[in-house]
């Protein structure tokens, strides 16, 4: 067919252009500079991909452009960094967060009963507001005089000590007896908010409840965890800090990703979901949210930049000549075709590639992927097949945020950890998505790699031509404009 031929022709031209550009760069820069720059480009590309993949998944399915994605990248970095350097803060607030989330998660438990209530119209409107207010008051009471800033400060003390090798100085926490009523109150506060969210008396919301057993599972798990962490909140930090550094780092990655997933789910349920009928305001909401998150981090950890210590596997001075040697010695650099390159960056490239494979498998092989691909086109029909699309939306949003958080912790060991660190990556993520095509994860990967390479070579040329690196950064916008003019829907995007 004519159309197919054209497609093949375009692909051939694209491959030729890519090779042409790469060969041109190779012959201009010489082998060593070329390889080093390429590796740097791939590192950047991997991080861009982690940001853009989440953005594009969320946008593709829900038409939601998450302007807080960069802040979530940043939060991932902070969460991982905290866990790795001094988890006192995390363990200190975990029981509180868990208690509140457990409270929120009673929704499926109480909603079926609440919506059946017989309420007058005015009470139907008033009751949720009163419940929210009551929840807020109880919540404020619960955290009254809780020295959260002090808790956060301990982390900063700890950096100094852990980097010299000694065990971190752990901050004294509130005595258990005084602390205990906080989670209890927060659970009540969460439950009150949940009751408000459940639209009491709104008979249009009546649905067949799931079996009681299923409804109880999640709140009970969360409650058990709350109690557990209430008791271990002091000893757990020590336990973590005495672990092997590499294991601790692996755990930090998992913690950051999980944190991103939960944060994403929470945000989708409480803030995005009520606004699907007013899409314009979702954008404003996420924008406001990014503002709030950034400021919150500054309140907790001050507007400073921290340097996360690299895990032992990447920390020993010296250059390994083979991968085996690196793994044995934990060298900080490795020689690749005669070029010295930091090993941690190789790990980041690996992370990006692994996550690309993961996303590809998820989208093509899993049922969730099938639902997402179908939901992009027609969420109503997916719902009519008996699939809870709202839940899928939540999962996808959470997944997208988890990917961003993973990117954040991945970047933390070689970028300064600071409140604005996500902004630049969000920007590049946007550009990536525009280049690759909205909603296409393959496009996100291709776009991320193109952009990463462009940035790396841009920096290289900037250095050579004695320009500032900011010029190279700005030049990615030009790539975006060129792609837009040639192919408004992006490289892998589909026309409407």
């Amino acid at each position, binding site marked *: 067919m004519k159309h197919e031929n054209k497609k093949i022709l375009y692909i051939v031209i694209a491959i030729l252009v890519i090779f042409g550009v790469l060969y041109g760069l190779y012959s201009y820069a010489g082998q060593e500079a070329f390889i080093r720059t390429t590796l740097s480009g791939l590192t950047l590309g991997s991080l861009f991909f982690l940001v853009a993949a989440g953005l594009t998944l969320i946008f593709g399915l829900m038409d939601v452009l998450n*302007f807080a994605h960069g802040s979530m990248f940043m939060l991932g970095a902070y969460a991982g960094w905290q866990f790795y350097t001094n988890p006192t803060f995390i363990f200190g607030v975990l029981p509180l967060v868990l208690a509140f989330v457990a409270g929120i998660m009673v929704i499926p438990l109480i909603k079926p009963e609440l919506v059946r209530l017989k309420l007058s119209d005015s009470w139907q409107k008033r009751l949720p507001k009163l419940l929210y207010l009551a929840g807020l008051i109880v919540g404020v009471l619960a955290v009254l005089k809780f020295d959260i800033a002090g808790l956060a400060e301990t982390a900063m003390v700890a950096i100094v000590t852990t980097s010299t090798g000694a065990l971190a100085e752990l901050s004294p926490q509130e005595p258990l007896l005084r602390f205990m009523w906080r989670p209890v109150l927060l659970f009540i506060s969460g439950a009150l908010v949940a009751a408000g969210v459940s639209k009491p008396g709104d008979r249009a919301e009546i649905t067949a409840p799931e079996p009681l057993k299923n409804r109880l599972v999640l709140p009970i798990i969360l409650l058990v965890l709350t109690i557990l962490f209430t008791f271990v909140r002091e000893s757990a930090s020590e336990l973590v800090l005495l672990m092997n550094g590499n294991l601790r780092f692996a755990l930090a990655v998992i913690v950051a990703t999980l944190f991103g997933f939960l944060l994403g789910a929470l945000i989708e349920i409480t803030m995005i979901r009520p606004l699907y009928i007013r899409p314009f305001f979702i954008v404003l909401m996420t924008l406001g949210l990014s503002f709030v998150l950034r400021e919150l981090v500054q309140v907790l950890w001050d507007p400073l930049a921290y340097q996360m210590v690299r895990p032992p596997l990447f920390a020993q001075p010296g250059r390994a000549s083979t991968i085996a040697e690196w793994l044995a010695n934990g060298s900080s650099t490795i020689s690749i075709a005669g070029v010295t390159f930091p090993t941690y960056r190789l790990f980041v490239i690996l992370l990006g590639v692994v996550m690309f494979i993961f996303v590809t498998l998820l989208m093509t092989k899993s049922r969730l992927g099938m639902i997402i691909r179908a939901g992009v086109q027609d969420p109503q029909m997916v719902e009519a097949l008996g699939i809870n699309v709202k839940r899928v939306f939540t999962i996808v949003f959470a997944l997208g945020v988890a990917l961003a958080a993973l990117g954040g912790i991945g970047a933390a060991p070689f970028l300064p950890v600071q409140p604005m660190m996500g902004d630049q990556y969000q920007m590049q993520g946007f550009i990536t998505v525009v280049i690759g095509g909205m909603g296409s994860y393959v496009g996100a990967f291709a776009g991320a790699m193109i952009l990463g390479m462009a940035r790396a070579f841009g920096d290289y040329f900037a250095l050579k031509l004695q*320009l500032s690196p900011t*010029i190279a950064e700005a030049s990615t916008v030009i790539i975006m404009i060129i792609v837009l003019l040639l192919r408004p829907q992006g490289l892998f995007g589909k026309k409407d």
Partner: protein
Amino acid sequence: MKNIWKKDKGFVIFVALAFAFPFIFSLLGQTSLTEGTNKFWQGQLINFFIMAVFAMSYDLLIGYAGMLSFGHAASFGGGAYTVALLLEHVAPDILKSYQIFIGSTNITEIVILIVCFLAAILVSILIGLLFSASAMRVKGAYFAMLTLALATALNLLARATDFVEWTGADEGMHGVPVPLWINPTQNRLTFYFIALAFLVLAYILMKRIVSSPTGRVIQATRENEDRARMIGYNPVTYRTLAFVIASVFAGLAGGFYALWTTSASPSMTSGVTTVNVLIMTILGGMGTLVGPLLGAGIMQIFSQFLYTWFGARWPLVFGIIFVLIVMFLPYGIVGTWRLQGFKIKQGWQRLLELTKTKETPEK
């Protein structure tokens, strides 16, 4: 002018109050017109006037044309940098060689200022066209993203060390030589009235524009682009027009802001600036013009108090307020007020009708 009094009593009263403010303040507090707290509050209001124009220009974009641009700070910063650059690097040379006086007025300085603002208009038109050319093919979230990317690129240029001799890179330009007669530190009262005049003029112009034939078409493209096309309007032309007009007003506001702060810094072109103006617009109510003005005023005064209450981290509180407004008060203060007013009116009408039906059987 009669029209404005008829339709916009609130605005006229506001202008009258703003005009009388320094005098009333000095009468009440027995303070000097040009010093102390009076001067401080004049400064606050000047800032408010300028930001109000910026916010109203943003309202033209998102409220009237329905384009959610996240790059509006580019025009604002563009105007600021144009004025600051010309005053800092071009004006001194000219003033050294030419000085024309009429009486005691230095004509050259006035001409230079006018040229500065004409240049700012030109630059903001160019920025508007650049943005339109690259972003006009796409809509909604895509558009928001693209404008943000373009604005970020400009922000990066402002911060680039390559032009440090001219722009001061990250530091920006400070102590720009603003002519004495309009200088906000020495002659604040004059500046106050000029800024007020700027606000009034900008408001009247924008009000005219949104109710002009072109303005109506712009609103039509917001409402239903396909339909507008089918009756013979090219939506791209009108959207571009709206973008450029909004850009010009933002550029002028930026120019004034540069005069007021005697500086131009990269933060004026940054996303935070756009977010600030967005908050003002949403707070007051989109598509109302008066709303953003009110929003700018509230933000100006609020930030003062929030700063004293919460210290340097006051934006956190502001951010939370913003999120709450988006959730629960999406039409902003003026929008919600108008809706409520509408409801109250309808309620009155119902009440009147009820009394009527009760009366008729008695007849």
